[in-house]
């Protein structure tokens, strides 16, 4: 073993200090520019955070791929859903006329929206692919009210950083950052392939985030919450998915 020279020791010390300082500055800058996901848990959180930061930079202005009408899947697969509760069944029997979307949190005008009121806002549709983290996928035309229309109508406040959305099944909710919430393709979908959104596919109302995988596209939405932090929701990770080991961000 060779003795370490003084010069080498000093060089190594300076390099290590610069490295640590550089990382600290990078972390601060990433935090300021919205490149840090809400929960970065354990060793595996490092990779998830790196992916989130890289994809936020890469996808700042990107649109999910859209397909031609003849690419719409003839046999889309509706992933299994928990048996709907009695309250849901009652709503379903009456054609969801009493279904309300509650818009809450950091908005100037909180309120309740019926499906027909949502349809009264400017609507949008896109033919996009929904891909499950398991590997399967299908293409459908999704018709709905862009989430930004609802946020603008409700007057989302400038300190808003996340939009959390809740299903009629109380254990099923998720959240997205403002980049995805204000994205032109993010829809509160109430239609699919020229008809009402069928219940197995999330009807009457489903969050459709086409740049993220299927599990961010929560079904049966009845509440959205605009917030500056997701720490107080559930276990604080922005979604129940991280409790099962899944990443909050699902762009990959």
């Amino acid at each position, binding site marked *: 073993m060779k003795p370490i020279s003084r010069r080498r020791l000093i060089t190594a010390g300076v390099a290590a200090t610069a490295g640590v300082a550089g990382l600290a500055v990078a972390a601060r800058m990433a935090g300021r520019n919205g490149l840090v996901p809400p929960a970065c848990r354990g*060793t*595996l*959180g*490092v*990779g*998830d955070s*790196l*992916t989130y930061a890289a*994809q936020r930079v*890469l*996808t700042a202005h*990107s*649109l*999910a*791929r859209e*397909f031609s009408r003849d*690419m719409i*899947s003839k*046999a*889309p*697969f509706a*992933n*299994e859903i928990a048996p709907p509760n009695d309250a849901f069944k009652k709503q379903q029997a009456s054609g969801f006329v009493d279904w309300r979307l509650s818009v809450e949190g950091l908005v100037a005008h909180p309120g309740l929206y019926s499906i027909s009121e949502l349809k009264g806002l400017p609507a949008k549709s896109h033919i996009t*692919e929904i*891909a*499950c*983290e*398991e*590997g*399967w*996928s*299908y*293409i459908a035309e999704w018709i709905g009210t862009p989430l930004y229309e609802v946020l603008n109508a409700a007057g989302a406040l400038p300190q808003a950083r996340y939009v959390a959305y809740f299903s009629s099944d109380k254990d099923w909710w998720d959240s997205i950052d403002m980049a995805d919430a204000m994205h032109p393709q993010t829809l509160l979908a109430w239609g699919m392939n020229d008809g009402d959104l069928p219940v197995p596919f999330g009807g009457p109302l489903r969050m459709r985030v*086409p*740049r*993220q*995988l299927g599990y961010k596209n929560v079904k049966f939405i009845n509440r959205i919450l605009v917030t500056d932090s997701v720490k107080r929701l559930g276990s604080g990770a922005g979604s129940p*998915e991280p409790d*099962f*080991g*899944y*990443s909050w961000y699902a*762009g*990959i």
Partner: protein
Amino acid sequence: MLAGPRHAALVRATHWITVVCFFALLITGGEIVISHPRFYWGETGNVNTTPLFALHIPSSRDTVPTGFGYVMPDQNGWSRSLHFEAAWVAVLTGLVYGLWGLASGHFKKEIVPATADRSWRALGAVIARYLRRAPTDGGEARRYNAVQKIAYMAVIFILFPLVIWTGLALSPAFDSAVPIAVNALGGRQSARTLHFFVSGALVIFLVAHVLMVALSGFRVRMGAMITGRAATPAAMPEERI
């Protein structure tokens, strides 16, 4: 006496980091496949469509018709996170190795076959020696023969870039920014199927690679990749290629 190490320190470090990443990617990739052991061609595919082929293994989802009467435990959460974390480390390591390989002349000197070896005749001669299990001329401990170089070139310049490309094409966000990444492969499901096959090719390489190391002198070859020390012909008298 032979000057310099058999493998440069950077080659040894990046090799072993890649080994760790490869096993992490292989295990977690396998876990992810178990959640949907069916493969399709084109843009879309699900249990309502005919697969290109299906693996005859149980699944971790009860929605997949496997013919097995039970469902495996779901390991996708940590598997996905570890898969992408290992991919980050592997890609960054590969980037360091690739840039160094170009700058140092490592690719030119040690990976790309010499002009004289670029003929079917020269390759045939090497293969014939393998088949006869003929003793080496001693130089094998210091440099790769043309067949080895071609195998390493295929892994470094074809399989690794392909596995990264097909993997990135499975990210809906990445595809929104770089749609050609998935479109050029014929769609999302084609990309997934190709990712599986390229990974299979890498596993075949791994098996052959480890087998050859074992056959040609496991301790000496491992020593060369760990400490960098090259074995002199005298130290491995019974070596065969």
